């Protein structure tokens, strides 16, 4: 289990670094897919199976398509043209990254020092993260999630209308 975690963690970090370093934007996108897949397996290891499926279907599938379309839409051209020059971005990135790592290390040691102990795992394992567990909670009339669930569809409807209006504005001007 731990071995699997470390293999995946190293793959994930390696793919993320490769994604940033690679000059070809399409290859970058493919490295991002590897990172997404690794994160999906992490979700399974944390017994959030539904989230893992969503990660693969939505992120590695649909969102990735959007990324690729943006890359093709912009047509970034030769990789040499992509190099940034004279910006402060690398400096700030380094500072913020170091601060983040220091914060992680500090928080770990602070938790170890403090008397607060993390909550013990429950005696009975409740499969909340599976597809079935989500379904049971989401659609059960005794649970308060019915209205949020239905409102989600209105949210998606708004997304549809917004996308169509933004993209088809030109056509709208011409329709008599």
């Amino acid at each position, binding site marked *: 289990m731990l071995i699997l975690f470390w293999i995946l963690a190293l793959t994930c970090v390696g793919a993320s670094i490769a994604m940033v370093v690679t000059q070809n934007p399409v290859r970058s996108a493919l490295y991002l897919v590897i990172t997404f897949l690794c994160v999906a397996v992490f979700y*399974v290891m944390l017994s959030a199976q539904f989230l893992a499926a969503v990660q693969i279907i939505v992120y590695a599938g649909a969102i990735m*398509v*959007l990324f690729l379309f943006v890359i093709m839409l912009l*047509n970034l051209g030769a990789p040499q043209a992509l190099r940034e020059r004279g910006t402060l971005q690398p400096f700030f990135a380094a500072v913020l990254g170091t601060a983040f790592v220091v914060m992680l290390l500090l928080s770990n040691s602070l938790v170890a020092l403090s008397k607060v102990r993390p909550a013990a795992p429950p005696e009975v394992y409740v499969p909340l993260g599976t597809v079935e567990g*989500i379904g049971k909670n989401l659609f059960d009339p005794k649970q308060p999630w019915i209205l949020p669930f239905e409102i989600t569809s209105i949210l*998606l*409807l708004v997304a*549809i209308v917004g996308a169509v209006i933004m993209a*088809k504005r030109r056509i709208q001007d*011409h329709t008599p």
Partner: protein
Amino acid sequence: MSGNHGDILAYVPLLVLIGVSTAIALAMVVGSFLLGPKKPTAYKATAYECGMTPIGSARERFPVKFYLIAMLFIVFDIETIFLYPWAVTYRAQGYDLKIFYFAEMLVFVAILFVGYFYILGRRALDWDESERAVARDPISPEILAPRPPIRFGNEKSGPVRRLPEPAHVPAYGAVSQEERIAALTSRRE
């Protein structure tokens, strides 16, 4: 993490499947690369059969239409995500709850159907807008009128004679290929 160990072990077959399929895919690519003879000639390097010789770079800019379709795809993808837990739990319910579940999903899908019909009504999925373009600025009849035949340096050989249509050409496969060719070429005097 010890509580769900059995859960994780259920994914071992999946891991094996991923491993085997990756290995097969790699073996095919690497194997053909290693084993295949490589004797490139100028003729082999040309495009195969009716392939076109490439003109310019393949990195062209992409029409924005694709982006709209991808965005709409994401919305319906998320709708499908909600269908998974519903479908898994639906069967386990009693009769009354089944009706409730069904109505719940019906409302959800009905609201999204409004969006679907909106997309259709706005013709957001229409790929080609030429139909509308014609309605907007009609093409002049001269462009649509039949044009004289294009000549390729044979202007001196007199006017183009259109060959008379053959009386009867048998359907493809009805007669032998030779007979068909004979029927097609019989109009040539």
